[in-house]
């Protein structure tokens, strides 16, 4: 064979070899790996974007908007596509209200394919950025929560996070109603990241509104009065519940300190919580009303039954004293309540006996959550009768040795104020377009017992009573003060008090009930000094506001 033919043969061989390699490679890529490479193409050409379904609104009883969602936008970057990170950062900084250096740090990263530059930007600014047409910068649909009333009722309403997820409060517990369902869109992008078209995969759906029983005006006044007291007495915290005692509707639920829902990251967990339902305390003297109510209902005493009371009374190993030492005295049941006599209340409690007493405090709803439609409600602690020690009946009648929540106190006092019916307080009146009916409640006291107690509680705000300095001209008020020492390590503190007051008005035909609790006030500590005036301020606004004419 000629040399040239051998060489030609080799050339032919190389040709056939290369041809088969290329052919086989094409067959492998297109036949075997076709599916996965097509998936790669799809994933790099399209981007699935979540389109938030807007949350429903939170309305007050008059329809005023407390929380609403509006369209917003997130600004995102594909850093490796951004040509001049420094310049782009300079241009975006004023619009995003961020330092250019921070933006530059995010953008100047050729290894990064995704970065959020801003969340929840208003739509107009986002449109301006979109129109700049900067390669590598684009916007995503977002939604943001607006609270038109600012801080009003913030701990009650609760909060949502950056991704519009419900975090606390009613936003969380009513999320099934409020939360919209997110939709999905597929954005087809070209190699430079410019969006070409959008295909909706799933439609987003808006959430439904909820309506509260809260009245913004009353809420506002309540918060104002509460924070004034909290600040004046440098308290640790404070809460107030305002109710219509007849319907059980909560008209205001105030917490101090509160937080600004637009600056959620600055809020502490204490501020986020709703003290009215989540905070428990020893009620102290405000609890004496229930001691008396039980004895009245069991006919152990009448309002005018007299008691010869020594200076102190010893129950088992415990000596109960009055808050201000006094000589032995004779007081009627009504006077015991008006003057808040510890010895008197314990005497009545002992008369009643532990079994009946236990029956009655449970009848008033203590030791159980009220069932108000609010998340994480506390139930307080009421000792089981089997756990009573010899001195327990020296504690419980004066509101020590058990703990309650503000909403329990407001509900139980409402039963006294409304003539004897205990109702579950109502905070949410409408959900998902459906009305939530008031609780019909159940009668726990005879009307006569309730009226008797109302009259006795008037005495607290009359001369000689513990809250005699509080008055609202034109209206008769009723209520009960409480000044509970805070239990610390098994003994009662000499410095830490819970000043509280539960009151209602007008005394004869109550339309308004307020419970005020101030935790660890400084400078003054009695319920009469610290808490009762808050009730007075709330009542003086709310009674005329509710259209209740002075007598």
């Amino acid at each position: 064979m000629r040399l040239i033919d051998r060489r030609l043969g080799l050339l032919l061989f190389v040709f056939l070899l290369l041809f088969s390699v290329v052919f086989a490679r094409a067959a492998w890529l297109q036949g075997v790996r076709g599916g996965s490479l097509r998936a790669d193409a799809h994933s790099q050409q399209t981007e699935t974007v979540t389109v938030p379904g807007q949350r429903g609104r939170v309305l007050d009883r008059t329809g005023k908007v407390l929380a609403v969602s509006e369209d917003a936008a997130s600004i995102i970057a594909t850093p490796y596509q951004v040509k001049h990170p420094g310049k782009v950062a300079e241009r975006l900084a004023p619009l995003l209200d961020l330092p250019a250096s921070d933006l530059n740090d995010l953008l100047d990263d050729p290894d990064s394919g995704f970065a959020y530059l801003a969340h929840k930007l208003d739509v107009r600014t986002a449109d301006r950025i979109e129109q700049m047409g900067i390669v590598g910068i684009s916007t995503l649909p977002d939604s943001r929560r607006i609270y038109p009333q600012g801080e009003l009722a913030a701990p009650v309403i609760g909060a949502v996070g950056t991704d519009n997820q419900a975090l606390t409060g009613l936003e969380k517990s009513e999320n099934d109603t409020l939360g919209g369902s997110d939709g999905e869109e597929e954005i087809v992008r070209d190699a430079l990241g410019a969006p070409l078209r959008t295909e909706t995969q799933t439609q987003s759906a808006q959430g439904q509104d909820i309506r509260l029983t809260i009245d913004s005006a009353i809420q506002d006044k309540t918060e104002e009065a509460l924070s004034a007291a909290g600040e004046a007495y440098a308290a640790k915290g404070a809460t107030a519940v305002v109710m219509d005692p007849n319907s059980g509707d909560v008209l205001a639920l105030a917490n101090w300190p509160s937080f600004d829902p637009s600056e959620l990251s600055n809020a502490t967990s204490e501020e986020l919580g709703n003290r009215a339902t989540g905070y428990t305390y020893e009620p102290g003297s405000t609890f004496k009303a229930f001691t008396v109510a039980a004895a009245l209902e069991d006919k152990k005493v009448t309002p005018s039954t007299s008691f010869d009371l020594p200076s102190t009374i010893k129950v088992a190993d415990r000596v109960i004293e009055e808050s201000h030492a006094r000589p032995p005295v004779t007081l009627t049941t009504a006077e015991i309540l008006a003057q808040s006599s510890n010895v008197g209340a314990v005497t009545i409690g002992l008369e009643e006996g532990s079994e009946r007493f236990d029956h009655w405090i449970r009848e008033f709803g203590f030791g159980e959550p009220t069932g108000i439609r609010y998340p994480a409600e506390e139930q307080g602690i009421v000792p089981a009768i089997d756990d009573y020690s010899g001195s327990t009946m020296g504690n419980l009648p004066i509101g020590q040795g058990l703990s309650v929540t503000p909403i329990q106190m407001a509900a139980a006092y409402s039963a006294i104020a409304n003539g004897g019916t205990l109702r579950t307080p109502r905070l949410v009146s409408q959900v998902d377009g459906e009305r939530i009916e008031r609780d019909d409640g159940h009668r726990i006291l005879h009307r006569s017992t309730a009226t008797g107690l109302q009259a006795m509680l008037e005495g607290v705000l009359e001369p000689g009573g513990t809250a005699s300095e509080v008055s609202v001209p034109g209206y008769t008020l009723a209520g009960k003060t409480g000044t509970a020492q805070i239990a610390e390590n098994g003994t009662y503190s000499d410095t830490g008090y819970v000043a509280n007051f539960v009151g209602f008005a007008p005394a004869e035909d109550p339309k308004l009930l307020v419970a005020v609790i101030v935790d660890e006030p400084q400078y003054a500590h009695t319920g009469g000094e610290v808490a009762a005036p808050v009730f007075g301020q709330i009542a003086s606004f709310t009674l005329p506001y509710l259209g209740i004419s002075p007598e």
Partner: protein
Amino acid sequence: MATARSRPLGFSARRSGVLERLNIPHMDGVLVGSALGLIAFSVFTLASVTQDDIPGQPFFFVIRQSAYALVGVALMLAIARVDYSRFRELRVGIYSFMVATICFVLAFGAAAGGARRWIELPYFRFQPSELAKLLLIVSLAAFVIERTRGGRDLRQTARMLALGLAPAALVFLQPDLGTGIVLMVITLAVLFIAGVPWSHFAATAGVATVVALLTFVVAPTFGVPLLRGYQEERLTSFLNPSDEDAGSSSYQINQALIAVGSGGKTGRGDQATQTDLNFLPERHTDFVFAVVGERFGFLGAAFVLSLYALLIWRALRILTLSKNLYGTLIAGGIVAMVMFQVFVNVGMNLGLMPVTGITLPLMSYGGSSVLVTFMAIGLLQSIHVQSRLASARSGRAEVPLLR
């Protein structure tokens, strides 16, 4: 002898018809057919993917590629009429012209993307390095025949190598890595067909290894980079195609792979999103094969590859038919050129080869490339025609090695 009857081989003594005048009956029809098939498929593919590339001119690339094809066919016919053997005498002139045009473009060429590769002509940007491929084949083949008379010693081989590598080096300087490599391959192919002993190739390989070591290892170590950054990156990036940087070679290869694979067995047609959304770079030139792969799938890719197989087979066949060594060497150079370009380009599109900027003959858009390829086919036809005429004259039946 001179009768009016036609000869059995089919050419008339009365050479008056246009077809006769153009030697068309003596051409290799399959070769022409495969070339025309490729250019037609190129125009068809360009028509479907380049409509939006230049706003307001949906047929910009289609019209130009068609025009290049027409001019190319004319050049092919013209060259087929000429007896290629006459180029042997012109070897010094051809070689000098080739070197001169490359030098001219180095000095005065239009710059684009950091490289000087073109000479601006009215309506056309001419790329001398493309033409250099053909001029090198024609002149080097002539020099080789000249020199083989003086014996086949290593010095002659070295001289021939130097003749071939000089223009390659000049093209590297433009810088145009791809064409430079093609010129080297042509040189080696011509020497190979000419029968240069294996030992000479081994020596050449040894020298090349030393040069490569100097270029890639020794010189950079001493801070003298001989290759431009992007060239080195191109040569090495196909080893790690997962790099995601847009515009980098590995990104391009990765996008080509995704495009070809997406095409599957029958192609995505108008759903060819890799192409439509601009993920595929250089889709009308270097990566046109990936476009075919995505739009027409394995069917399309196999069709194009088959046309190339046909074309290369016919070229190899002509190589064996040549009436003289000169024709054999020219055909060998052309076969090597086309084969190398096809497999390097398709290999790049299939992720088997690095990105070198080597075009796919007749499929890639580009005047210089299309014209030069048709001219090369014209040369092959000339060899075919001359062999047919010669055998007709001598009465010797043609006995090709490849049928």
